[in-house]
């Protein structure tokens, strides 16, 4: 399959900390890739480098053969790489619907359709429907319609995560990076949520990279796994292979299990 995203020899240090060391990853079109690894292993750094929030010290990132290493988050978003956040980044004073409309407005504007003199209700590029319709459609796909007029800051945690992801859909991304989409979501809800997200994403058609700590979720939804440890990729294979890799077992999964026990513990406490 065609490579849409190609990261070559990415290195990044924050002072003494190695956030990325010789990270190489070529992502094929329309695959779903799970990024695993303990906290500080370099997953978020990897995402931040792809989306231009952090510039690698060395190495390059190509999107459909175009070097995007030097681009700003804004430019990278515009060419079709969108991301969600560990901590949802919402417009807290606006309603859910308005959150969507702001995003769609930006898309229209970047397409030269939302300028000062443009009239009428043009179709949102890639969605071939007017903004309101698109907003409703996406909200519906993410099961957010009931919250349409709620202010973002009063939403429950899970819903915030969903809206945060829904907001990435407005730009019709070619690549979607989900940073811990299920963090802060109870174990029961996780699967339902991922089902919904993946369905919605597939409907919009996008390559997905998602950071996940829950190995069951990973093995269920990922077609391919990148296991990070200490800034390096220690495994890059299909889930069943990657997760049974001894190194991964030692450095990642084990850590995860411990982490999960702790989390449970805290929940009960």
């Amino acid at each position, binding site marked *: 399959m065609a490579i849409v995203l190609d990261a070559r020899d990415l290195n990044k240090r924050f002072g003494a900390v190695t956030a990325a060391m010789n990270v190489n990853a070529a992502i094929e079109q329309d695959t779903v890739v799970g990024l695993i690894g303990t906290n500080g292993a370099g997953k978020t750094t990897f995402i931040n480098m792809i989306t231009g929030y952090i510039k690698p010290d060395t190495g390059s990132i190509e999107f459909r053969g175009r070097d995007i290493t030097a681009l700003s988050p804004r430019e990278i978003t515009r060419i079709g790489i969108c991301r969600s956040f560990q901590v949802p980044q919402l417009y807290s004073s*606006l309603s859910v619907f308005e959150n969507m409309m702001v995003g769609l407005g930006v898309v229209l504007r970047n397409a030269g359709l939302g300028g000062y003199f443009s009239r009428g209700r043009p179709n949102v590029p890639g969605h071939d429907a007017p903004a309101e319709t698109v907003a409703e459609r996406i909200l519906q796909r993410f099961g957010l319609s009931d919250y349409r007029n709620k202010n973002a800051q009063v939403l429950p945690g899970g819903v915030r995560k969903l809206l945060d992801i829904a*907001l990435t859909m407005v730009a019709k991304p070619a690549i979607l990076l989900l940073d811990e989409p299920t963090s802060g979501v109870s174990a029961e809800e996780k699967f339902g949520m991922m089902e919904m997200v993946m369905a919605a994403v597939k409907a919009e058609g996008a390559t997905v990279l998602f950071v996940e700590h829950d190995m069951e979720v990973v093995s269920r939804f990922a077609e391919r796994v990148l296991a990070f440890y200490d800034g390096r990729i220690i495994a890059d294979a299909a889930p069943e292979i990657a997760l049974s890799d001894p190194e991964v077992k030692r450095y990642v999964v084990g850590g995860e299990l411990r982490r999960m026990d702790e989390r449970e513990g805290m929940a009960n406490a």
Partner: protein
Amino acid sequence: MRSDRTLLILGIVLLAVVGAGPLLPQWAMFIVTIAIAKGLVALALMLQLRAGLVSFGQALYYCIGAYSAGSLGRFFGISDMLLQMLTGCFMAALIAYVLGFLLARYRGIFYGLLSLALSMILYGLLVKSKALGSTDGINILPSTVFGIRPDQEYVRHIVLVAGCAVAFLATLLVNRYLNTPLGQLAAAIKDNEIRVEYMGASVRDAIHVKYVIAAALSGIGGALAATTVGHIDPDMAYWTTSGEFIFITILAGTRSVVAPFLGALIFGIIHTVAFDISPNTWQMTLGIALLLVIVFLPDGLWSLFARRKVG
């Protein structure tokens, strides 16, 4: 549909002012005209406030507008108030475009204080410029409209109507802008700049545009005030003037583009009233009035006229 209602209100206000004009005594017309001039600046502050930015130096552009109008009369003998307002608008926008590259990088208190510093520098420069009358300022030619000097009896009303018309037009354009995606970014920028950037919009550009629009409005306001009062002086750039504008904006509330004008009018009335009921302690009256509004009408006077927003 909210915008439509705004237009409706605006239209009614305009008609009311134009129609009621002749019935008003001259002093009242004067107060209303000044209120419109200051309202334009308050509107400018409102635009920035919606994006979470407060300029403590908006008087900079008010003053630039006034002095552009003044210079037009002093050096070129042009006294047409429409031309003056146009020039004021243009000059302010031009300077704001340049300074905008600097200002757009600032947020919060620093945005406010840098604009304060800039306006105080202009103040200093004007004080030093003898050609423009130093602190005593200069008088500007009596207003004309389309080259015609209105008769003494009607001049107040003419100025008022002309001012209204321009303010009306400006407000319509601003209102339209507020309904474009760019205009609607304001709240988003206030809430979460990171997300705005990750949606593919440039926060800096958006703020730069706002800054220029705000300056243009203030420029018109300054020019209108200048031609109405007939005198300009460096105090128009002094920080206390900017303070007065913030006062008006908060007094009015940021809900509607009409609010600033209402706020300015009420501010003018409070001021006059304070002078009448307590010539020796009018500042106290003013202060108390402001406190009462902030405490009892946290969303500004406008909340008396508009229903609470849902959500």
